[in-house]
């Protein structure tokens, strides 16, 4: 599954954040998305996921093939780990959650309510959801927040297995995941990146973008 992004411009709150973004995400490869805080990584990922329309440009992939892993895990505190995963699995028409449970080492936790998990365990459950969507393109926004080293390793293994199976992943992260991956820096595409004086309004929106997590 390949995703080609042509001349994409994205906006947050009506203010252009990135302009003229071009890259290709090819099957079997991982692309690491880099850029300073507030540079528009989240906005770009949300646009690619189809949650907001771009102001210009084209994305070749159908949103039906994309799964988006946001800062928020979308977990229900009163449902158990198993119920949370089973729900997303059946929404996506997947029968088995075993691979997801084992892949993120959740085996002993399946009957615990998600509200009783630690931050790292919640994050692992949120990432396990990716495996029950069955979708080839993963767009991940800071997936390793609150994960310990061992869990980052589990996550890297899951990404490796995913791309080995013909999938692909675009991951916004600030840490080294130990993956064979190219890096895509979005800084050159920032809207009016060459402006001499910073616009207070634009910077306010940029801060807002980061605060919106």
């Amino acid at each position: 599954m390949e995703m080609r992004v042509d001349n994409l411009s994205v906006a947050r709150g009506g203010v252009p954040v990135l302009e003229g973004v071009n890259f290709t995400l090819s099957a079997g490869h991982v692309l690491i998305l880099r850029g300073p805080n507030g540079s528009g990584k989240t906005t770009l990922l949300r646009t690619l996921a189809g949650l907001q329309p771009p102001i210009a440009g084209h994305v070749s992939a159908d949103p039906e093939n994309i799964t988006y892993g946001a800062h928020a895990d979308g977990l229900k505190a009163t449902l158990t780990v198993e119920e949370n995963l089973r729900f997303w699995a059946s929404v996506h028409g997947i029968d088995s959650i075993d691979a997801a449970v084992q892949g993120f080492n959740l085996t002993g936790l399946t009957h615990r309510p998600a509200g009783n998990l630690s931050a790292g365990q919640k994050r692992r459950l949120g990432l396990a959801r990716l495996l029950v969507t069955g979708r080839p393109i993963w767009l991940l926004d800071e997936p390793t927040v609150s994960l310990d080293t061992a869990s980052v390793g589990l996550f890297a293994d899951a990404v490796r297995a995913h791309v080995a199976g013909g999938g692909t992943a675009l991951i916004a992260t600030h840490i080294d995941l130990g993956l064979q991956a190219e890096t895509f820096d979005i800084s050159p595409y920032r809207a009016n990146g060459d402006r001499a004086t910073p616009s207070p309004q634009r910077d306010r929106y940029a801060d807002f973008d980061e605060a919106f997590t």
Partner: protein
Amino acid sequence: MIALLVRDMRLAMRAGGGFGLGLAFFLIVSTLVPFGVGPEAAILSRIAPGILWVGALLACLLSLDRIFQLDFEDGSLDLLATAPIPMEGTVAIKALAHWLVTGLPLTLAAPAFGALMNLQSPGHYWIFITLLIGTPALSMIGAFGAALTVGLKRGGLLLSLLVLPLYIPTLIFGAEAATRGTAGLSALTPLLMMAGITAGSIALLPFAAAAALRVNLR
């Protein structure tokens, strides 16, 4: 879609889910009105259908902001928007879940609560029928209001103000049908008008609510 319905029902039944909130409020209204109005049986039985309708409507209003707000806050709504279920389907299912945990219990309880207000004999039947037909419209209109206000922190006040005028036609026809039926008159016209509002809401508002949600998720 069934999975979404099961999840929403399960969440409502679990601790803090809000099931029973509307019902408890409805019971409180039905209990307090006779104290406020006084013990005159004739007056009570005359106002009973209207009071029951107003009570059911307010009880319904109480839990509207839960329809989308919690899913918005924990990120589930983003994930549902990118899931294979169409947004319109998500809205319809969530409105249905709201009706099953709020509107349906209110409908079933109303004839019994009517006894507290000396509701006369055919009245039990009529209050049940009118609420059964009318409460789905309340849930659907409410889901539309909730979709409009989903991004707002503490949007409950705005939601109530937005939704109240939209509830008025349902209330007028519902209470009118219940009052006429209880008095032994023909209630067909207001009943059909209310059924029309319900059918129209169910047919049109999922699309409006889905559009509002898409805008709010940007």
